[in-house]
């Protein structure tokens, strides 16, 4: 393995791979194909400028910003509880996971710690939003490759998780439940039992998807060996989350650098990696991750402590002067907030590090030499949410 810190070796590696991949034996007159901003494979408004030679992609350049909502600027004129409602909309499929790193950063600055019960519930809801996010990926990737049925199964079984999130927080997609110093409310009655049922349904759904889609020969033909991202390239482009683990890098913030306030060390679980780095590996890692998340939730549900869910914090929240960066392992990868406070009601500056923006930056490298259908496999398996790219 070459040293990642050496930019020259990375550049040489990239050049070598690119040269081998583009086949120029049958060079024809080129064609520029604009995929998007309105295109079914881009989940929204990403635009890919693809330069084609026949069906072969010579270069692909993602253009983002069509959905830029200026969240980083908006945070400067909103109080901390208001920002919480705003950042729900970044990765809209796993909303609760967006709140947690920001709240943890604010807690770090204020020196507050949530009570144990709140930490447990936070972790459970965090993993539930991961399941809600990735279970939809498993169906949606099937749709990208032409297998429509998986999508409807995913929508059907995602309801189990969304119902649990809704009954606990009041919001199906945008909970806005996390507070500095704890949570808005305690869990409703009977929630723990119904969550166990929901997790069992989700585990069954994972088996079903594995039978229907991941084990399918055509699916494997479309994904195995397609869009291979070696570990060095993945690291140098700043990939994170399942995309990085699928390239064989054993790196998970939940285990390696878990911020205080989340209790992943209280559950017994495993970080899955895959050596191949292709589209299939990325799907497979996500499938296993969904299972692990369901297991984490089930274990934490059994060990949840009693007590209050809110620590003592002042009614009007003023964060003392300072800087803090907290990152967590969100469904899409590393998501972090760099919060700079000047001791005011509003933060001075918030930098949002969202995973999808870095994850799609590898598209120009990995799409070279792929066919147009493979470009869809690559985009689908890299799995981005437009709100997470453009913010």
């Amino acid at each position, binding site marked *: 393995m070459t040293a990642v810190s050496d930019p020259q070796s990375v550049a040489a590696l990239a050049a070598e791979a690119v040269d081998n991949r583009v086949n120029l034996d049958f060079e024809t007159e080129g064609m520029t194909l604009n995929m998007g901003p309105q295109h079914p494979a881009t989940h929204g408004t990403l635009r890919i400028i693809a330069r084609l030679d026949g069906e072969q992609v010579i270069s692909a350049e993602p253009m983002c910003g069509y959905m830029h909502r200026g969240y980083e600027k908006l945070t400067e004129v909103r109080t901390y509880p208001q920002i919480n409602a705003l950042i729900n909309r970044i990765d809209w499929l796993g909303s609760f996971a967006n709140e947690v790193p920001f709240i943890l950063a604010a807690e770090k600055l204020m020196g507050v710690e949530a009570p144990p019960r709140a930490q447990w519930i936070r972790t459970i809801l965090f993993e539930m939003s991961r399941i809600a996010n990735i279970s939809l990926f498993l169906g949606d990737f*099937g749709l*990208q490759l032409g297998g429509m*049925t998986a999508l409807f199964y995913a929508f059907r079984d995602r309801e189990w998780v969304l119902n649990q999130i809704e009954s606990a927080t009041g919001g199906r997609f945008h909970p806005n439940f996390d507070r500095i110093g704890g949570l808005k409310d305690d869990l409703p009655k009977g929630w723990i039992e119904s969550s166990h049922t929901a997790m069992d349904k989700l585990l069954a759904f994972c088996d079903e998807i594995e039978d229907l889609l991941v084990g399918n020969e*055509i699916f494997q033909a479309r994904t195995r060996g397609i869009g291979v991202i070696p570990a060095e390239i993945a690291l140098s482009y700043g990939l994170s989350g399942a995309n990085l683990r699928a390239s064989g890098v054993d790196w998970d913030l939940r285990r390696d650098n878990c911020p205080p306030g989340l209790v992943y060390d209280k559950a017994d679980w495993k970080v899955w990696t895959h050596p191949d780095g292709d589209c299939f590996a990325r799907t497979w890692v996500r499938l296993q991750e969904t299972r692990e998340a369901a297991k984490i939730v089930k274990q934490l549900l059994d060990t949840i402590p009693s007590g209050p869910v809110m620590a003592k914090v002042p009614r009007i929240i003023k964060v003392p002067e300072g800087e803090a960066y907290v990152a967590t392992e969100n469904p899409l990868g590393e998501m972090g907030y760099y919060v700079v406070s000047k001791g005011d009601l509003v933060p001075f500056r918030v930098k949002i590090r969202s995973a999808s923006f870095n994850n799609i930056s590898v598209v120009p490298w990995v799409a070279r030499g792929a066919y*147009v*259908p493979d470009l*869809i496999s690559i985009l689908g398996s890299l799995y981005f949410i437009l709100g997470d790219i453009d913010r």
Partner: protein
Amino acid sequence: MTLLLAAFDPPYWLSTLIKVVVVSAVVPTTALILGMVFLFKIMSWMQSRLGPQEAGPRGTLQLLADGVKFLQKEDISPNGADRWVFKVAPLVVLMSTLLLYVALPTSMRLVVADLDVGVFFVLAVSSLSVIGVLMAGWASANKYSLMGALRAAGQLIAYELPMVLAVVGVIIQAGTMSLNGIVFAQADGSIFGWGGIGFPYILTQFVGFFIFIAAVQAELTQPPFDMPVAESEIVSGYQVEYTGFRFLIFFLAEFATAFAFAAIAAVLFLGGWAVPWLPTSSDWYYVLGPIVLFAKVMVVAFIIFWVRFTYPRFREDQLQSLAWKVLIPLALLNIVVTAVFKVVL
């Protein structure tokens, strides 16, 4: 009533008129039936959702409502389009579908034209649709359309061969190319001297049946062979610029062709309009024949649509290599084995 039908011998002009009216009524009807039963009801059942519920009893009239909606839409042709070719292309595709129904026997005399080379005719006219597809893709002046049309052309040519070769086994076994003749051969045949259920050719030609169904899927550009119209990458390919009733014609042609191919498969492999224990000369087939054929078509169509709703799609090169490296050698082997048995037995 059956006797009345048997004695009915109209003059040439009247019979021609009846045939034209019947075919032009049957084609949209079959498309509607397949669309309603499979695209709406069976598909939503397989995908654990309800499907259309509001239009008509249990949503059965949804497709009619959709058709009326399509007719109301503006007929747009893009600025850079070759207007004349763009407008004619759907009709070319539909014409190929209409011609398929000409040779389709629904009983001994209920057939538009009982051709001696029925199988040959059917396979020949079915490939005409590729001209319409190419016209549509080229005339649309859209990159997605062009890619879709070229993919469709490559695919239809590649899958025409295994389809023809798969049918050759049946022709060898029946000793005739007439579709009615193949039905008679199956109805009058016997399995090792036992003529209880005749001799449906699927018993010996199951390889041919499998190849035929796979090739039909490809001809219809349905999943797993729907690369030419892949909506998640080239956004429905050659249909992307079509609106209103011209899009409706593409839709009609696709489903009517699916019905026609299912009927051809039923005739070639499942005994067509004949049922066991009722001799083919019976007058009852004037009424029973179409019903029996329809039932068998639904069985075959169920297989076609089941696969359609389950599998992801092949990539274009994988699809070509499947045709040239797997299906064609398999079909040739099937022909050799069938011929050997024909000579030996």
